């Protein structure tokens, strides 16, 4: 699904990622861990197509050259990124934003836009599933949301947009245990043969609910170690220094 080869990424003329390789197949869940400032968020932003990032190398998604596509074109192709700090847009209702996003994607793909009734049905269903308070729909996007509400809103957007490649940047940070469960429930509901994930996290606790297929350690802009779920446990027990020095 996603093939990254020899990727270099710059942010503000600084080299953040160099020579990174990553191969994500359909249905796989990849977890990227690493110390702060090692380039984890940059990697996701580069895949999603942020203005900030300048990328060089090969990045193929279903045989499409991702680097030639704008962020919204990538989203339309089925790439979704949840933000570590979801951005506030005052005066724009969450529900309006969501509907605009969904219909823009549908129209770009040559599909019909969803009617209000069908759209609301879909939203209701997902909200019940995630146990999200309905009041967020009418509130300005992320404005005055609690940390938990912001993250749940990201998961709601993810579920409604039905992407194929999902990038989650610290979706679990700052969540209480109930919110974490609900977020994990949302993630697992999309897991399947067609959907892949790249998840950034600092903690193993999310992975107890969302068991990964692969765990990678990013250091100085490179994947320095890959393994399975046990690597995350090992990290939690020993810390980065020990784990990395043992390689």
């Amino acid at each position: 699904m996603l093939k990254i080869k020899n990727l270099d990424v710059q942010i503000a003329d600084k080299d953040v990622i160099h020579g990174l390789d990553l191969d994500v197949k359909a249905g796989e869940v990849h977890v990227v861990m690493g110390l702060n400032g090692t380039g984890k968020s940059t990697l996701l932003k580069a895949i999603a197509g942020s203005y900030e990032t300048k990328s060089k190398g090969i990045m193929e998604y279903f045989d499409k050259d991702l680097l030639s596509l704008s962020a919204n074109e990538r989203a339309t192709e089925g790439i979704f990124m949840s933000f570590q700090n979801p951005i506030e847009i005052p005066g724009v209702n969450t529900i309006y934003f969501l509907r605009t996003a969904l219909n823009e994607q549908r129209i770009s793909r040559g599909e019909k836009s969803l009617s209000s009734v069908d759209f609301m049905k879909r939203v209701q269903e997902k909200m019940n599933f995630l146990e999200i308070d309905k009041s967020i729909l009418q509130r300005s996007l992320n404005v005055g949301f609690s940390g938990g509400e912001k993250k749940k809103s990201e998961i709601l957007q993810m579920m409604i947009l039905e992407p194929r490649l999902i990038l989650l940047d610290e979706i679990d940070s700052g969540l209480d245990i109930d919110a974490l469960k609900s977020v994990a429930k949302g993630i697992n509901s999309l897991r399947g043969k067609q959907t892949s994930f790249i998840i950034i996290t600092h903690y193993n606790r999310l992975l107890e609910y969302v068991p990964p297929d692969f765990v990678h350690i990013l250091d100085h802009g490179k994947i320095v170690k890959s393994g399975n779920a046990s690597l995350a446990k090992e990290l939690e027990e020993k810390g980065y220094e020990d784990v990395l020095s043992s390689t």
Partner: protein
Amino acid sequence: MSVEVDNIIKQEYKLGFETDIQIDQAPLGLNRDIITFISEKKSEPQWMLEWRLKAYEKWLKMDEPAWAHVHYPPINYQNISYFSAPKKNIASLDEVDPQILDTYRRLGIPIEEQKILAGVAVDAVFDSVSVKTTFSETLLELGIIFCSISEAIKDYPELVQKYLASVVPMGDNYFACLNSAVFTDGTFAYIPKNVTCPMELSTYFRINALNSGQFERTLIIADEGSYVSYNEGCSAPIRDENQLHAAVVELITLKDAEIKYSTIQNWYPGDSEGKGGIYNFVTKRGKCLGEHSKISWTQVETGAAITWKYPSCILLGDNSRGEFYSVAITSLAQQADTGSKMIHLGKNTSSTIISKGISAMKGSNAYRGLVKIRPQAANARNFTQCDSLLIGSDCAAHTYPYIDVKNPSAQVEHEATTSKISDEQLFYAQARGISEEQAISLIVNGFCKDVLNQLPMEFAVEAKALLSLTLEGSVG
């Protein structure tokens, strides 16, 4: 950020076309003879001519104001033609120059039969003479007078003499005084006691003839217990020379009356270097004469090279209320110095100012507001919110709030914010599949929501479209 969209905003001004019709134009310059010429052309009564001449004498002794945060080359007032009119005299729509009608159609002015169904009465000002007034008869049945100011001067001289310059005195300011001397046409409306005007009244202004400054004069009077909503929309053809526009609008509400005045201003803004474009130096003021009366200004300003405009309310009647809701966008090299004045004179008077300034490209946007509470205005209240949104890094926003409180029981609040459309906001929206342009439009509409909500429904739809159009490609 993507650069390609930068080109879109530079595309031709969408309402910029010029109509080729014969005009009856005064020679360039301004003197007593020209004013007499204007007055004669319009077959005005003697008192009107004398009034104009008095204004002219006053104007000669005044200086052009220089305090506004705008810059432009000196205006040569002797190089302007102060009168131009479509040549034919018009009795019915059939006689109207087909080209004019075509212009109206392209502007979407609802003058034809099918538009009547939309429930809009239009006093269309083409250059300086009203071509056609629709709906007047229907309105007259309710006692509502809706006609050109020229007609009103002839047909309702008592009302005009009583209220003209009662809100904006002849010598109020340089541009208002010039207008008093040379105004060529405009709108007059009178709503009689306890009548709620059943439809939105509208006027389209359109500047057309080469080098003709345009000096509209509008006077709206809402008698006791009446209500009227008035919509004003503007656009102008593309042109290289700067064109001076100095309108005066006066609103008067008597006891328990309400006037809602909404404006969409979309005049030619000039190019990205600041060349061409309309100079819009306007005096708009309302007077809440009676108790419990209300005047509400809503404006969406997207056009003009320079905007100098402060729709204001004089709150004379006890318990009267003034409102000002404004969205002002400056893009390209546009400059705006705009805001409001709320003068509290009566007891328990209240006012609200919500101003949203948006600057993009090389635009400069200044909010200038005055809240004045006089000693006799016990328990007056004002709430002012003044927000600026910056797009890109070459634009500017300034805020000049003046507050002058002379009564200790007053409550005055002022809130101001400045924010920027960030790359992060755009990326967030794009990562959800929303294009950059749509994202800007979304963010701007969200920013302006409180003001757009004040516009009459159809006007709001138009305003939203205009906002998107104006800001297309402003991020580069």
